[in-house]
């Protein structure tokens, strides 16, 4: 799953990614929420996902990665 964040000035982009990271850190089943390629220069926020915990249901895969990126 990829969530696109509207582009724009870098500050705005980083503020949006920071908020997304905060939200993702509170999602059950999300671990290792991180900026990529780096915290200083974030373009995306990624997290490892425990799929069954996230979906509250069984699923053919047990692990996944969610990435939110911009633009």
């Amino acid at each position, binding site marked *: 799953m990829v969530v696109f964040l509207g582009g724009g000035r870098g500050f705005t982009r980083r503020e*949006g990614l920071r908020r997304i990271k905060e939200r993702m850190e509170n999602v059950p089943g999300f671990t290792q929420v*991180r900026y990529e390629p780096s*915290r*200083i*220069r974030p373009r995306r926020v990624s997290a490892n996902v425990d799929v069954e915990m996230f979906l509250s249901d069984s699923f053919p895969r047990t692990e996944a990665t969610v990435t939110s990126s911009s*633009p």
Partner: protein
Amino acid sequence: MSDKEPSWPPDVDSAERVRHVVLTQTEPRNAGWIATEADVSRDTAVKYLDRMVDRGDLEVTETADGTCYKADSVTQLLREVRQLAEEQTLDELTQELNQISTEIDEWKDQYSVESVSELRKSIGDDELTGDDRRERLEIIEEWEYNIEIRESIQLAISLKSSLSTLGSDSLVATSSTTAPQEG
């Protein structure tokens, strides 16, 4: 004005919602638009927006939509430079500069250009396909993003150096005091 229904977590109060909305816009917005997005009344939005203007977080501009608000670019830059200086070590800042330069060098080689300006001009080349142009436009955005962050990093390094010269050790720690990826 957006036609979507805003959905906010219950623990995010109205001031924080207004702040979040206005600081994540890429163009100036008027109080009514911000109020709708933040799920507050227009009067409430104006109250918090004016406070942010007073603090220097926002600047006011007149547009076709009336009085509009946008993030103050100088405040944002200074805040970011200070945050970088406080939270990153000199080594971390230097490594990031190196990674930025490496990436830009790779783009120069990949697209046979010497600058982002040249890459922008190349968008008009007749032989490019639509996919080529879209790819180049994405690279231009990332290239300019890199340049912007590079400026902030260089200022942060200068700030650390100046404070070190002045004998202030508040920003010259040799190791980061924050957890990786925090914030």
